[in-house]
């Protein structure tokens, strides 16, 4: 029997202390309390990051730790190498430069938006190894199980000398990352836009943070969720009318999440006009897990919305949010507090409906945004667009969807989340949204993935909505009916033209497929006049001047 006192139980703490000693030596007198001058960022990183370390570099949907990302590309690859990067989002060129420079070799991530094409090229040349592509919640969860960061590089609005961080409205992923790192003997470094004597509120307690670096430039924020109403088409208005009348009103959907895009922006802008004219105010869309979409302003002002919890903030919406604390989650300082992990959990467990767009849908209803030349990842959609099997509380919408499912698949009474895929049958350049086989299969083969990267699985989808109508997959008896229901709303795509006309008419008679006219919607009413705002300027006006859109969205 070994003597228990001989076994060492604090290797990680000892390693952390060695790193901190090296940092103290490298920084010398330049370190004051926890504050490191910007020009010492590289020596600091070289002191606290060891070869093979798991490094979480904060890059979120909106907020980017861009100064620290640049600093990391400047470390000596002879000292710092073989890093295993953990990132919500691969957004900046520097995020991929690390692999070409020989600093990092593996990445586990969720979303790669702007770098998707370059990532695919680098995978093709074996320049980067992808551990797995996750959903946000999944990646955060692994930070607490088998992918705990050794070093976290995060971004905040301001800090004091003791390391207390104020993240402002864009708290986003910071709490999840810092908690996982700080409590497992990792090192937390924050870049901040400014040093202050006292932070407006403490978003991250100072004793979870080891170093703060005042960044020469404020961190980058992407206005990812702003959609100009001027670009919403009449077809999108028509689809939004069908969503409101054929799904939201039908099920009485009160708690929901909207995916990003013009399709859902059109729904938001139809709430105070079309939905109100149907008498739906107070009966639908009161509680949301949603980023502060500027296109929500008219609905909020009309009193449609009771509550919105956000994953992150949206550039230009800060003053509007601060002036509407009954709707948004705000701190004692008045500004919003967002939290991606909690909002994702809310979307998963507390919302009755998710609606979003996609690029491709197959005949089983599986959908994917993957194409062979782009590895774009998932973000949060798979969590939003899934029926949470762990949910137990009931709501009218959830129960009704469950009842519909049991008409085809008898079983013990339980509810069902509504998961709606909303697509035009053709995208720009006549790319069909409906395909026999998802590009995800080819991408999986090319990038050596164990399974095709499916965004939302067919068995999670309840409705597919196109300009041709709504297919209710809950009411399909078997795979063949399901296929014909999908073909029946697939328009003039090859999949749509290949429909069995008799079966589709039968499905329509049964209400499995519902066209605009079946819902009492006259297509000629689908004009842009129905939109509560037809331009960014209209949104500013609706907000009473509180919404301050980024320059690129101003054309006046």
């Amino acid at each position, binding site marked *: 029997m070994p003597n228990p006192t001989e076994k060492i139980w604090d290797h990680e703490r000892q390693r952390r202390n060695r790193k901190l000693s090296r940092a103290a030596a490298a920084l010398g007198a330049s370190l004051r309390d926890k504050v490191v001058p910007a020009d010492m960022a590289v020596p600091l990183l070289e002191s606290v990051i060891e070869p093979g370390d798991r490094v979480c570099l904060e890059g979120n949907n909106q907020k980017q730790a861009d100064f620290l990302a640049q600093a990391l590309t400047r470390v000596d690859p002879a000292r710092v190498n073989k890093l295993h990067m953990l990132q919500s989002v691969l957004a900046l060129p520097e995020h991929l430069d690390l692999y070409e420079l020989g600093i990092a070799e593996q990445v586990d991530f969720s979303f790669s938006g702007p770098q998707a094409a370059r990532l695919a090229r680098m995978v093709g040349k074996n320049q980067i190894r992808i551990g797995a592509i996750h959903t946000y919640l999944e990646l955060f969860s692994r930070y607490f199980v088998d992918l705990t960061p050794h070093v976290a590089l995060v971004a905040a609005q301001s800090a004091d000398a003791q390391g207390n961080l104020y993240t402002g409205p864009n708290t986003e992923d910071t709490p999840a990352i810092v908690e996982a790192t700080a409590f497992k003997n990792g090192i937390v470094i924050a870049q901040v836009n400014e040093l202050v004597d006292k932070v407006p509120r403490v978003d991250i307690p100072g004793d979870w943070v080891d170093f703060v670096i005042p960044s020469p430039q404020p961190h980058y924020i992407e206005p990812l969720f702003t959609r100009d109403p001027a670009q919403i*088409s*009449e*077809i999108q208005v*028509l689809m939004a009318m069908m969503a409101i009348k054929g799904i939201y009103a039908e099920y009485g959907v009160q708690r929901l999440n909207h995916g990003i895009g013009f399709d859902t922006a059109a729904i938001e802008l139809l709430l105070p006009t079309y939905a109100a004219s149907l008498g739906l105010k107070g009966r639908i869309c009161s509680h949301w897990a949603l980023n502060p979409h500027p296109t929500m302003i008219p609905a909020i002002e009309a009193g449609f919305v009771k509550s919105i919890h956000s994953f992150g903030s949206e550039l230009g919406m800060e003053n509007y949010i601060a002036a509407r604390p009954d709707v948004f989650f705000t701190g004692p300082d008045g500004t919003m507090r967002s939290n991606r992990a909690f909002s994702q959990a809310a979307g998963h467990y507390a919302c009755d409906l998710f609606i979003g767009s996609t690029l491709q849908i197959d005949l089983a209803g599986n959908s994917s945004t993957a194409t062979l030349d782009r590895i774009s990842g998932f973000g949060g959609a798979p969590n939003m667009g899934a029926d949470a099997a762990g949910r137990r509380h009931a709501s009218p919408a959830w129960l009704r969807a469950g009842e519909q499912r049991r008409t085809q698949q008898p079983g013990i009474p339980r509810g069902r989340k509504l998961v709606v895929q909303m697509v*035009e*049958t*053709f*995208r*720009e*350049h*006549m790319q069909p949204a409906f395909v026999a086989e998802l590009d995800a299969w080819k991408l999986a083969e090319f990038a050596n993935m164990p399974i095709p990267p499916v965004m939302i699985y067919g068995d999670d989808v309840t409705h597919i909505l196109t*300009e*041709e109508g709504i297919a209710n997959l809950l009411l399909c008896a078997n795979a063949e009916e399901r296929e014909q229901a999908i073909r029946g709303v697939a*328009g*003039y795509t090859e999949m749509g*033209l290949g429909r069995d006309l008799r079966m589709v008419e039968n499905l329509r008679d049964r209400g499995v497929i519902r066209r605009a006219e079946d819902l009492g919607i*006259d*297509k*000629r*009413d*689908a004009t842009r006049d129905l939109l509560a705002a037809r331009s960014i300027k209209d949104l500013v006006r609706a907000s009473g001047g509180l919404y301050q859109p980024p320059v690129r969205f101003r054309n006046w």
Partner: protein
Amino acid sequence: MTIENLKYRFDNGTPIQGATAIVGVLGSGNLEVMVEPAALGGACEIEVSTAARGFGTIWQAVMKDFFTRHRAGDIRISVNDAGATPAIVSLRLDQAIETFKGQRKT
């Protein structure tokens, strides 16, 4: 960029009365549709000029469905397309025929 010209003719429609109508705009992803009266013995002739080549089968299906919906005869339709999706094409055709008949809802 070469333009593709497609021609369709549907017989046995019901002659409709109206005045020449133009709807839509020739902007990217959109199209312009003109409907004119024409003595065609009850037929409907459609000429499409499109910048997107190789979609003849889809145009054929869209036009056939359009004719089935309205069965409008003695008209000539000219379509000037800048890459509109079939959904937009159908919507504009429906708008054009209603405008031609002078009863388009506003």
